[in-house]
Each structure stands twice: as C-alpha cells, then as structure tokens.
C-alpha cells in the first residue's frame, strides 16, 4: 500500500516539476504579453497543484498536510487575482495584444 502511495506521489511530483518548466518555457518563448500570461498560468495551476498533491501524499495525515492545503488554497485565490489585475493594468496602460494581420475580405 505504501509503495503505491510512494510511486503515485513520485509521479505527481515529477509531473508537477515538468509542468512548471513548461510554463516557464512558455513565459520565455511566447510572442506577446497576453500569451505569456496564458503560459504562466500553467505554472500557477497544474504545476503547483501536482507538486502540492504529491507532497500531501508523501506527508500523510499530519500538520504538514494542513499547511500544504493552505498553501494550495492561497495559490488558488491569489494567482488569479494577480493575473486579473495584471491584465487590467496592461489594458489600461494601452498595451495592445498582438493580433494576426487583417485578412483581405475581397480575396476569394
């Protein structure tokens, strides 16, 4: 039983780390600010959630689990708020999203 939990938490932790790297890679590679924000969301949601889930499985029923759940709750509340404020501030400052060039409607 404990072997299953260990393997499961290992999978979760490694996958969480991989998702964090993917999100950060998107932060570097994406072409404009709004798409970068979208990529950074991967780190904030899936990466963090998988890492915390893996650590909760590793900790078992203890005070550490409660603290990990509190960290997860904090992340779930604060990161969307920060992202929303960031997008609103960027729009208010007049940062335009990068759009595809306008298609010529007269062409077939």
């Amino acid at each position, binding site marked *: 039983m404990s072997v299953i939990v260990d393997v499961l938490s290992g999978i979760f*932790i490694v996958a969480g*780390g991989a998702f964090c790297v993917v999100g*950060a890679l998107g932060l570097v590679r994406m072409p404009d600010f709004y798409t970068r924000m979208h990529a950074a969301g991967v780190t904030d949601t899936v990466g*963090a959630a998988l*890492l915390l889930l893996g*650590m909760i499985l590793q900790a078992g029923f203890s005070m550490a689990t409660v603290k990990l759940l509190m*960290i997860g709750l904090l992340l779930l509340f604060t990161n969307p708020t920060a992202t929303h404020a960031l997008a609103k*501030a960027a729009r208010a400052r007049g940062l335009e999203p990068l759009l595809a060039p306008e298609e010529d409607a007269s062409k077939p």
Partner: protein
Amino acid sequence: MFAAAAISLLVALALALVRAMLGPSVFDRLQAANTVGTVAMLMLAVLGFLTGRPEFLDLALIYGLLNVVGTIAVLKFFRHGDLGDPGHEAERHQ
C-alpha cells in the same frame, strides 16, 4: 524524486528570470516576478521535504502572502501613478 522536482523548479526559476531581464514592458517583468514568487514558494515547500524540515512550509506560506501583496502594490503604482494616497486623489479631482 524531490531532488528532480527541485532541479526542475530551479530551471523554471532561471527561465522566469530570463523573461524578467528581457521583458520589453514593465508588465512582462511583473508577470515574471509573480512567476518567480510562485516557483520560489513551491521550492521552499520542496526544500522542506528534501531536508526533512517541515518548518519550511510556514516560510512558503509567508512568502506567498508577501508575493501577492508586492505584486498588487507595484501594479497599482504602475497603473495609477501612485499608491492611491487619498490626499493625492482629492487634489486631483478638484
């Protein structure tokens, strides 16, 4: 396992720092700073398990709280030009 997670978190931290240095606008840098904060929080939690010291989870919690307050404060400054000092607002609306 925790070492692998710690190494991938360090890589993510480095990539976010690259964006913070490159970032053409201040909002790119803020987004990168926010990501650095999130990753550092996870890093603290992983480090606590890696070294067998669960006290690090408290540090992670405090770091997360400070991170969001810092991001919102800097954003407010760059959006409005000040931190919302009521004295300034009253003068401006006259």
